[in-house]
């Protein structure tokens, strides 16, 4: 719900509306939606009248609008007029809440009454890096409570960066008999007991995906809670982030009776021998996470060498491979049979070197998505560049995420990728050293870039060769990559870099800034220049209250602004809060940050229809 829906309709439309709502003869379902916050008499009177011309229109509209799937299109349609607003609300089945505090569950469920699928995002992204004190909020509880009564036919829940408790999961499992899909990304607050209740009660469950979530070990054998007999509906079971052992026998039986299973991503407590056993039971898999890809400790001496090669050869539909959490490189060649078909390969937990990578990468001609550790070095990246001509997304993670290391990958790797992978759309690259030249080369060689995230791990580090700031490199990216929507900058950057972003980054929606800029001008350039900016996260940069003021015209168009360890003062934040009443301005105290002045630790502000939230912890002050 990225549009502000709080607008009263013009008076004449409202009268017509009142008449209509009493004539509703809905033929779709018995429920006559009240249209949310429309004032007027209830829709219960069913006196017969010749249908309004508008009634016919509404029926037609409903039949047409139900095909609109894009939420941006739907938001636009809902603004046409009152009747379109109402019909759109009735036909929206996928509800997306980009910020759980921007709208209340009550308001959302009142407007959209026939929702089957809900996506909610909570904490801001910088919370992933321990920049937000714990227990800040983003609780699923009020949402699941509201939905339990409002959406009995709910089928799908997708949550990102939310706090989910056992009780929430238990309520979910009990309230929605048609429930089919649960996807939890970067969530926390629950444990294996919560998974058990989902497994046991959601009999129609097709998808249970846990991605980068923190799941506590309640010592509950959750896999065993899936119904013991009969085939399951499971199509996707992803639990590679679950850091507790699982009952392998139960898992094996589960996989054996899940004929529709296409996606299976195991955690590191599944050994390679066990992987083999699962693979022979499910050759129809399209997505596989291999678990540890290593022998269990204390594997019996001479334990049967699994014929992994044949198991992979039998998986003819495999297109996405990940896992390798504790890889024994000896086994790597066994994945060869599937390499030629792979479109997605995630080696980002596999500590392998260039030579080991080359054993497999030279066969991966169709690869589009590749995640890897920097242990493959520039040489490994050159191998990727020479083979993976179709590459769209590359992520290079640091094995040793510290500032002062050797840096196995550098501008050389980036240059090679830019020359070999011309179709690149998205890149995340961690390195110790970079040059403007390599970044400029990428801006020229990869015109389709939409996401450019470069993390030079040494703070304030200039161009390795020229010793200049990295302004020109990032400037070239915004200038030459006309489709760029997401940008993360790093290294030594002056205000000039931001002037480039403001001048050329016209499509940029998400911008991440850390340890950059010289003065308020930097932030001003961005706030004044980037009309599409929605998400701005800044840390440790010298931007102050004056800069903050320069965005007043734009903050209502944004999902959020995060600024931590900058030069903001409480007065400046308060000014914003007073100027923009629909903005929630949170000043968050972080006791881990040491400083001697009165600057604000963390400013997190976002538009909201609800005003200050009532679940804010003590370290959060909401400015008013």
């Amino acid at each position: 719900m990225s549009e502000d829906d709080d607008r009263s309709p013009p008076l004449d439309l409202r009268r017509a509306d009142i008449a209509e709502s009493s004539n509703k003869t809905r033929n779709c379902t018995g429920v006559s939606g009240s249209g949310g916050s429309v004032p007027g008499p209830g829709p219960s009177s069913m006196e017969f009248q010749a249908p309004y011309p508008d009634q016919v229109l509404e029926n037609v509209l409903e039949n047409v609008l139900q095909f609109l799937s894009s939420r941006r299109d739907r938001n636009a349609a809902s603004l046409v007029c009152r009747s379109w607003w109402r019909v759109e609300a009735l036909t929206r089945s996928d509800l997306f809440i980009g910020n759980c505090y921007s709208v209340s569950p009550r308001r959302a469920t009142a407007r959209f009454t026939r929702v089957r699928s809900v996506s909610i995002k909570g904490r801001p992204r910088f919370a992933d890096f321990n920049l937000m004190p714990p227990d800040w909020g983003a609780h699923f509880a009020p949402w699941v409570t509201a939905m339990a009564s409002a959406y009995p036919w709910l089928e799908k829940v997708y949550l990102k960066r939310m706090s989910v408790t056992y009780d929430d999961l238990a309520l979910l499992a009990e309230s929605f008999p048609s429930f089919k899909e649960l996807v939890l990304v970067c969530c926390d607050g629950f444990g294996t007991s919560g998974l058990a209740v989902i497994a046991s009660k959601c009999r129609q469950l097709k998808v249970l995906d846990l991605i980068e979530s923190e799941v506590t070990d309640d010592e509950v054998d959750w896999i065993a809670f899936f119904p013991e007999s009969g085939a399951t509906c499971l199509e996707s079971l992803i639990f590679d982030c679950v850091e507790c052992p699982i009952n392998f026998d139960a898992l094996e039986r589960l996989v054996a009776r899940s004929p529709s299973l296409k996606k299976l991503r195991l955690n590191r407590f599944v050994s390679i021998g066990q992987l083999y056993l699962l693979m022979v039971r499910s050759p129809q898999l399209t997505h596989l996470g291999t678990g540890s890809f290593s022998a269990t400790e204390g594997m019996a001496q001479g334990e049967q060498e699994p014929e992994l090669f044949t198991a992979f050869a039998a998986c003819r539909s495999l297109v996405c491979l990940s896992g390798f959490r504790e890889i024994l490189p000896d086994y790597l060649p066994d994945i060869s049979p599937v390499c030629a078909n792979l479109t997605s390969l995630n080696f980002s937990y596999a500590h392998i070197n260039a030579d080991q990578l080359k054993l497999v990468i030279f066969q991966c001609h169709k690869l589009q998505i590749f995640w890897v550790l920097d242990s493959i070095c520039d040489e490994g990246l050159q191998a990727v560049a020479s083979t993976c001509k179709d590459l769209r997304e590359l992520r290079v993670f640091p094995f040793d995420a510290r500032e002062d290391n050797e840096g196995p990958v550098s501008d050389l790797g980036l240059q090679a990728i830019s020359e070999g992978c011309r179709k690149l759309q998205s890149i995340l690259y961690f390195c110790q050293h970079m040059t403007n030249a390599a970044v400029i080369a990428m801006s020229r060689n990869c015109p389709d870039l939409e996401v450019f995230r470069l993390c030079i791990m040494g703070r304030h580090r200039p161009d390795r060769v020229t010793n200049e700031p990295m302004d020109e490199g990032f400037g070239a990216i915004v200038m030459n990559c006309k489709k760029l929507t997401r940008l993360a900058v790093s290294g030594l950057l002056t205000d000039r870099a931001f002037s480039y972003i403001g001048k050329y980054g016209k499509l940029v929606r998400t911008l991440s800034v850390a340890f950059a800029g010289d003065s308020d001008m930097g932030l001003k350039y961005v706030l004044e220049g980037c009309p599409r900016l929605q998400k701005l996260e800044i840390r440790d940069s010298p931007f102050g209250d004056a800069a903050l003021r320069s965005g007043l015209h734009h903050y209502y168009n944004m999902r959020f602004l995060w600024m931590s360890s900058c030069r903001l003062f409480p007065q400046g934040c308060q000014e914003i809060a007073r100027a923009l009443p629909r903005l929630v301005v949170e000043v968050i105290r972080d006791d881990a940050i040491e400083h001697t002045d009165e600057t604000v630790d963390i400013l997190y502000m976002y538009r909201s229809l609800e005003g200050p939230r009532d679940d804010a912890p003590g370290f959060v002050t909401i400015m008013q």
Partner: protein
Amino acid sequence: MEVSRKMANMLGTDRDLNFKETELCLGLPGGGGSEPETTKATGKRGFSETVDLKLNLQSKEDSMKNASKANNQLLPCTKDPAKPPAKAQVVGWPPVRSCRKNIMMAQKNTSEEGKKVNGSAALVKVCMDGAPYLRKVDLKMYKSYQELSDALAKMFSSFTMGNYGAQGMIDFMNESKLMDLLNSSEYVPTYEDKDGDWMLVGDVPWEMFVESCKRLRIMKGSEAIGLAPRAMEKCKNRS
């Protein structure tokens, strides 16, 4: 060097490090093991620098401490060509999620431990002609050929001890016995060594065998006959 020039530009006053490098002092060059995990704001100094009793070392550390308190940002990396003094790690930087950081840390520790325990396991594949499965053994688990052949016998039931002489392994000293064995249909163990040559198991001292063996294959004696000359050759050269 380019590095120190850059440093001169970036740092301003704290340039004593260059002098440190060219100074003669008692310690080892390059510094001792300053473990990055235990860095403080000033970083652990290399061994050479700790041994050096010059007072200006102390004051440099102090001035760095003060500088980092004054602004909330630490000084840029002071690149010691021998060993950079590690900076204190800033919260949430680099922006890698903590679960990933933890996993990487765990992997690093296990691989370091593996190195400490006398090198990693010596895993080799074992196959036997006619058997439909492979095994994998860690040669470091055994101390002698006897133990290995006992274990192989357990894994491959048709691999009986047969004519293996008192030690349970091929008696290379006895040429005629060897030829008998190789002419028979008994199974003999062979291995591929580092040079890629296939050899009869038992011809080198055990430790040397563990180091050089890449793969084991148990084949019929009659097939191994081609290896015999080499085995005899090496055998003779040794005696």
